[in-house]
């Protein structure tokens, strides 16, 4: 076991390498650039390849290419770059390409506040590209979690063959804290399933376990055709048959939706007897936790649901908890994104919101005063 003093950005880069990442393509952007800088120094030391591309379109395309070349691949960016990556995130979803995208959120829209925190990419990380698909989105609240969830992001990307997004925020990215690093043999690593049949019998998009097809990469003798067009199990384009479209898209979505319980990751704090539940993630969840602790001391039956997996959203959990919890307060640095998802899933539970617009984090005091209002309100 090693103990390091890392920022969230450095921790995410180190976590990625611990997970087996050996390819990074990126384009500089605040507040994520330290990830690229760190990767440019560290990746060659472990035999990996770092390449600085001409833009984020190219960065995203390059990690897909590297993933089909058999490497675990990652890029890192912030909102404006994340917007550019949506095109090839869609290709990654359609072609079921394992890869990890780190999005260190800053305040938007557009160029917004480049050096300051935001959490406005919750919805974009879900469905920023066109068409129906699902991704997996993880949100860390500390440098330790940047490390741990970077590993988890790679494992999920490999398991489900899906672009997986590590949705960080500027504050978590630039915060330095203690990070405990387990020895490599103690770190769980998942690798993509390989076909076990001969190339003659192999259908590259025929689903296996968990609705995920085994993946043959370039140079392995399977001569796979990979296309962003609607395709059948052979990988061949079928662009006029709605039944093939339905079969494919249903599976692309369901392999994530129907495995939600396995992908789910959240921290529950004082939720045993909570009458009011705060729902938060990332840096906002840390202020929320401090506020909940203070409120508990003052006798309020308040708890915190901190989402580490944002997408797929844990719908069944919220449906169940709504039987016991009357009120929910969503704390996030945007004008209402996660809030809608909570509202959609808690039935008659009342959902309150404490937004911020970016540029600063919630203080525990302002959350505590909102807790009091909501708790005593109608």
């Amino acid at each position, binding site marked *: 076991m090693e103990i390091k003093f890392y920022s969230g950005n450095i921790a995410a880069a180190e976590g990625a390498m611990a997970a087996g990442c050996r*390819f990074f*393509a990126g384009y500089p952007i605040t507040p994520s650039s330290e990830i690229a800088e760190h990767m440019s*120094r560290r990746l*060659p*030391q472990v*035999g990996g*390849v770092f*390449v600085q*591309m*001409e*833009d984020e*379109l*190219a*960065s995203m*395309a*390059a*990690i*897909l*290419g*590297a*993933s*089909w*070349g*058999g*490497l675990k*691949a990652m890029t890192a960016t912030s909102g404006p770059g994340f917007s550019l990556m949506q*095109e*090839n995130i*869609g*290709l990654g979803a359609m072609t079921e390409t394992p890869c990890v995208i780190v999005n260190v959120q800053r305040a938007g829209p557009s160029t917004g506040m480049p050096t300051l925190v935001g959490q406005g990419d919750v919805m974009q990380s879900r469905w920023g590209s066109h068409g129906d698909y699902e991704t997996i989105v993880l949100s860390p609240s500390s440098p330790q979690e940047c490390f741990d969830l970077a590993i988890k992001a790679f494992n999920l990307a490999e398991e489900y063959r899906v672009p997986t997004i590590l949705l960080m925020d500027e504050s978590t990215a630039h915060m330095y804290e203690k990070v405990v690093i387990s020895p490599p043999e103690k770190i769980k690593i998942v690798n993509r399933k390989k076909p076990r049949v001969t190339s003659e019998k192999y259908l590259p998009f025929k689903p296996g376990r968990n609705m995920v097809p085994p993946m043959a990469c*370039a*140079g392995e*003798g*399977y*001569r*796979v*055709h*990979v*296309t*962003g*067009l609607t395709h059948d199990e052979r990988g*061949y*384009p079928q662009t006029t048959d709605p039944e093939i479209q339905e079969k494919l898209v249903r599976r692309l979505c369901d392999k994530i939706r129907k495995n939600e319980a396995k992908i789910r990751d959240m921290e529950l704090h004082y939720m045993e007897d909570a009458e009011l539940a705060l729902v938060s993630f990332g840096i906002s969840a840390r202020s929320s936790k401090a506020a909940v602790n203070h409120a508990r001391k003052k006798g309020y039956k308040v708890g915190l649901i901190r989402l580490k997996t944002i997408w797929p959203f844990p719908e069944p959990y919220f449906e169940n908890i709504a039987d016991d919890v009357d009120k929910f307060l969503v704390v996030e640095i945007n004008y209402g994104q996660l809030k809608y998802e909570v509202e959609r899933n808690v039935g008659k539970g009342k959902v309150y919101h404490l937004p911020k617009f970016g540029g600063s984090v919630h203080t525990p005091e302002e959350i505590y005063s909102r807790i009091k209002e909501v708790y005593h309100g109608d």
Partner: protein
Amino acid sequence: MEIEAKQHPMDKYLRADRIPHIWCPGCGLGTALNCFLYALDELKIEPDNLAIVSGIGCTGRIAGYLNVDSYHTTHGRAIPFATGLKLAKPDMKVVVFSGDGDLFAIGGNHFIHAARRNMDMTVLCVNNYNYGMTGGQLAPTTPLEARTTTSPYGNVEHPFNLCHVAAASGAVYVARWTTLHVRRLKESMKEALNKKGFSFVEILSPCPTAYGRRNRSPTGLDMMKYYQEHSVIKHGIDPSEADIEIGGDIIVGKFIDIEKPTYNEEVEKLIRKARK
């Protein structure tokens, strides 16, 4: 025996179950693909050691007909996808086969930067002067005054001279042929495939359906005759002097063939340095 006689000698490189292809009568893509298959065959390139990456468009469909690891990516992004693939699989031969709109309009930035890095790949660009797949719109290669569905009064934009762009961006091998020059095109493809670094072959190809019939060449044959009448072979010429204009000479030949360390070689050196 009769069944054997019906097999095309290049079937071994093709996904025969995907033929017939989608291309129009008179299109030059079949010829371009045929030249490529013979180039592969004569170089004895092992199919399992070859990856084809395409973007979007008529030429982009080539990837789907080749029985190798083949990637039909997003519009304009074949080169960066191929960049990632080549860096992950340095021992594989990586070829980008795509059209002029894909590689030089939406993908133009990727082209110049891959050439600048001297990324080890071969880029084959089929230039038919227009966007054929979408119905014949103006492309960055459309000659001045040519009519397309989005330049109904004649094109007022200056076109790219693709070989000049490639050379200026740093490509180590640059050649241009038409689909009339089948043997020379095949030989040029072989040279490009053998070249270490960023090699580029422009293939002028008829598109009678979308381009020719709006520009006084309504059949593939008309366009081939035009190539025959206007092509002039000038090896080694500065590609900046090889602009394409309506009615002017079409300068073809091998323009650039130089040596430069490739990006892959530099990355290998860098990794050795970092691991010391």
